[in-house]
């Protein structure tokens, strides 16, 4: 590869100046003239029939302009792949917090007051909360009696189970001969692991502002991370044709998977259409907890057959994801969680069953890691228990069972761009795994541990990009990759700058408007750098083809002999033969700008489509199931208070393989942020419930880590490993989700190293650690 000028450099973020001055546009900051404020009355019951809704008194309240119920909307559902969710409850509510009635009023206070005047009569139904009870053949309630009649995605159809009426998807992987594998084993080890329900806690709550245009079109500004997904769901929910719906996403105040579904958009649009005025519907923090999507709590059984020397010969995994009231992105999490058990270890005989189960809880959806967090937690904890049992060092046990480049994994894919080994060794060294432990101070005992992670990225998937060349030499990039903090605009601009050999600040990014910017599947699955990055490269090539064709005549050289730099086209090898982009344009009469004589504009466009092979429905085997795998390792050093169970993270080190770091400092941002979020998941975060109602829907009772809980810059280290991917732009894969996955297992191992307890339930709260310490003493 020739020398790179912009790619691989830590240019400063494209969006930083706007953000440090408070000028960056967020939807939560939007207040349109003549705008109404929306509030929603939500179900107080986890499961009930709606008998009657009476809004008469609310309608009389001065300042109330419009009231919306399911009766005002088309009786159609929406969903990510299994179309099971109404915009507002139709006849039945399935979780506490489900929207039932929406009000638009002249002020937020009036809208809120109107809710108290609405009378809804319910008939309670039995609630089901435990996924293992919900997945029984005769559960206390069947939450979606019409499951079989729902439509679904033809690309990845869900599989149902005849004897489990609350299971909305069942994914299987079969590889080798499991029975024969267990027969070869010297030891069989079986454990049960669990993880908790978590909220994304984006700092900007979910929000949409909708405007019904006079011609019947609608415009929606929303804080979302899948602009085209939101548009499609809106079209499905409101039965609108796609050209009538314009979605605009400015900057997004955090996503992490939680802003991929229409939580606010359809209600805002419904009210805007009804009132003919702009409507703002902004979640409160409490609504984010009760009514946005969450990370699926899980129960995972792992049964392994192992040789005495630690070689894995058989592995059986059962994954139960508590999906809540609707499948949402969870229908896909069920399948993709499985890949957490695929991407790291070599297992000759393997069986996995993953289930998504409806319960009467908030909706399980996408959450940074998309199921891999849960499954890798179980697998990594299990590896440590095998190591304990065989008295082998946990790192040594891992070394023995890692995949290798070129090996077939349990999904049937060939392993490539596999940086796990390098990441593991780097972390072993940097965390001081083999060094003597720090000294204990009183009840505080020190320990170190390591966890591995892999994170696939979805396929099939596609992204598009458009490039426009300006007469002043600037390169304009149009993309629908959402900027939610991950730095997509910066990284994509770097790729365009590299392709045109211009300075980074000569690239302008136009993003996030479905009227202007082309299709993109969204900022999900750590997919943007790889997929949209590829689209940008291809669009640049397309633009260059046109540019060189236009310049060829003027430079008297064939197009294939031309190259571009700094807003000019050069004849290769002849620095004195060049022409500025602007000189390809001719001046028009008066001062009315410049025009190209042919072709109107220099526009390049491209689609990147990441192919996938259809995997076998019964065995999950395919030749290309995912786009790529991110690999990595985290090492943690902790102090555990033997008397109280409190755990403090003293140091964290992560090494991750992202193929190629387009912007190393932005990759560090992802690693450090992943460590932070991983510490939250590992030690603190758990949504608590009473009969389906969230008990801790605020930051006082649901604790997310502050700067005190996460080690400072002296004690957090990120290392970039570059196992180039042959299909990635400049070899790049992704990075966003990987790190969080490895943090919990590393802390688990460190706690064991400190005080000799093995925990299997995440988060490892002070209470759980204390109880385990008490059991150990007893």
């Amino acid at each position, binding site marked *: 590869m020739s020398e790179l000028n912009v790619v691989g450099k*830590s240019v*400063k*973020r494209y*969006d*930083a*100046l*706007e*953000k*440090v*001055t*408070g*000028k*960056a546009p*967020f939807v*939560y*900051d939007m*207040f349109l003239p003549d705008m109404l404020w929306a509030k929603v009355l939500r179900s107080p019951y986890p499961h009930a029939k709606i008998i009657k809704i009476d809004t008469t008194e609310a309608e009389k309240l001065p300042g109330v302009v419009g009231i919306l119920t399911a009766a005002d909307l088309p009786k159609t559902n929406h969903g990510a792949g299994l179309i099971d969710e109404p915009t507002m409850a139709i006849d039945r509510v399935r979780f506490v917090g489900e929207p039932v009635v929406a009000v638009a009023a002249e002020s937020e*206070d009036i809208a809120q007051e109107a809710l108290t005047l609405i009378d809804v009569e319910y008939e309670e139904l039995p609630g089901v909360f435990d996924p293992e009870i919900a997945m029984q053949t005769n559960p206390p309630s069947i939450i979606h009696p019409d499951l079989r009649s729902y439509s679904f995605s033809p690309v990845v159809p869900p599989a149902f189970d005849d004897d489990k009426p609350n299971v909305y998807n069942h994914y299987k992987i079969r590889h080798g001969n499991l029975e024969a594998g267990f027969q070869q084993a010297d030891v069989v080890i079986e454990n049960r692991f669990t993880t908790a329900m978590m909220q*994304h*806690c*984006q*700092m*900007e*709550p979910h929000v949409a502002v909708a405007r019904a245009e006079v011609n019947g079109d609608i415009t929606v500004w929303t804080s979302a991370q899948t602009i085209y997904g939101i548009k499609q769901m809106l079209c499905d929910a409101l039965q609108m044709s796609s050209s009538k719906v314009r979605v605009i996403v400015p*900057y*997004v*105040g*955090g*996503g*992490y998977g939680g802003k991929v579904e229409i939580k606010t958009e359809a209600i805002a649009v419904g009210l805007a259409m009804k009132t003919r005025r702009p409507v703002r519907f902004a979640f*409160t*923090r409490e609504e984010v907890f009760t009514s946005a999507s969450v990370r699926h709590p899980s129960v995972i059984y792992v049964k392994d057959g192992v040789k005495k020397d630690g070689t894995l010969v058989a592995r059986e995994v059962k994954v139960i994801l508590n999906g809540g009231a609707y499948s949402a992105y969870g229908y896909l999490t069920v399948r993709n969680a499985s890949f957490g058990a695929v991407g790291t270890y070599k297992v000759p005989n393997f069986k996995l069953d993953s289930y998504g189960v409806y319960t009467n809880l908030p909706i399980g959806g996408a959450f940074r890691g998309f199921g891999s967090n849960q499954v890798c937690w179980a697998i990594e904890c299990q590896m440590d228990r095998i190591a304990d049992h065989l008295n082998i060092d946990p790192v040594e046990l891992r070394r023995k069972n890692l995949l290798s480049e070129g090996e077939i994994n349990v999904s049937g894919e060939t392993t490539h761009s596999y940086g796990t080994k390098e990441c593991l060794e780097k972390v072993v060294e940097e965390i001081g795994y083999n060094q003597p432990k720090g000294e204990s101070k009183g009840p505080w005992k020190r320990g170190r541990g390591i966890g591995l992670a892999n994170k696939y990225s979805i396929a099939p998937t596609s992204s598009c990009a458009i490039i426009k060349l300006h007469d002043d030499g600037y390169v304009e990039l149009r993309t629908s990759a959402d900027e*939610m*903090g*991950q*730095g997509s605009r910066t990284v994509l601009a770097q790729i365009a700058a590299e392709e045109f050999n211009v300075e980074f600040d000569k690239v302008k990014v136009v993003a996030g408007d479905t009227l202007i910017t082309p299709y993109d599947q969204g900022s999900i699955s750590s997919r943007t750098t790889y997929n949209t990055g590829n689209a940008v490269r291809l669009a640049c090539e397309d633009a260059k083809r046109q540019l060189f064709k236009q310049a060829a005549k003027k430079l008297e050289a064939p197009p294939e002999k031309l190259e571009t730099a700094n807003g000019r086209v050069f004849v290769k090898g002849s620095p004195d033969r060049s022409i500025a982009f602007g000189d390809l344009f001719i001046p028009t009469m008066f001062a009315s700008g410049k025009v190209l004589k042919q072709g109107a504009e220099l526009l390049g466009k491209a689609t990147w489509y990441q192919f996938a092979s259809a995997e076998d429905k019964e065995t999950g085997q395919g030749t290309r199931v995912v786009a790529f795998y991110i690999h990595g390792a985290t090492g943690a050093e902790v102090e555990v208070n033997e008397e109280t169970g409190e755990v403090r993270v003293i140091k964290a080190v992560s090494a991750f393989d992202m193929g190629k770091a387009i912007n190393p*400092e*932005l990759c*560090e*941002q992802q690693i*450090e*942020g*992943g*460590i*932070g*979020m991983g*510490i939250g998941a590992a030690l603190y975060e758990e949504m608590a419930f009473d009969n389906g109602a969230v008990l801790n829907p*605020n*930051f*006082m009772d649901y604790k*997310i880590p*502050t*700067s*005190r809980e*996460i080690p*400072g*810059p*002296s004690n*957090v280290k990120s290392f970039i490993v570059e196992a180039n991917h042959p299909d990635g732009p400049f070899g790049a894969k992704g990075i966003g989700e990987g790190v969080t996955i490895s943090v919990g297992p590393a802390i688990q191992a460190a706690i064991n190293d400190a005080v000799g307890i093995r925990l299997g339930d995440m988060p490892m709260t002070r209470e759980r650690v204390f109880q385990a310490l008490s059991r150990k003493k007893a």
Partner: protein
Amino acid sequence: MKYPLKLHVNQRTYNLEVYPSQNLRDVLREELGLTGTKEGCSTGNCGACTVIMNGMSVKSCLILALQADGKEILTVEGLSTNGQLHPLQESFIDKQAVQCGYCTPGMLMSAKALLDQNPNPTEEEVRDGLHGNICRCTGYVKIVEAVLDAAEKIGQ
């Protein structure tokens, strides 16, 4: 009933009429259009609405607008002067302390209040000084680095 309110924000004086129930955050955002101050929780926990009032960092969602009568308020919009970024803003850019950017204004205001009181903080003191501001993106690492970097620049 609305009451008169005189606010001094970013060295400009505003004469307003507000309801007793309105908090300072909403008045800044909705009446004055100063949306750099963010709304994140309304319970004083997230810190996205942090502003400096008479030299002290406060969560503007917990201050009734009328409590701010006659007080000097500084918001993120007033942090740079004459088009020149504040050293903290420069350091947040240079040290890549910005991700989604929603916590950034509040974080900057807390950091300014911290450095005004303690111009040479240690890493531990910065971590302690920012613990009232939640950031979900960064793990705080580059934010702490940026604040230390700004302290050094201001000291020079």
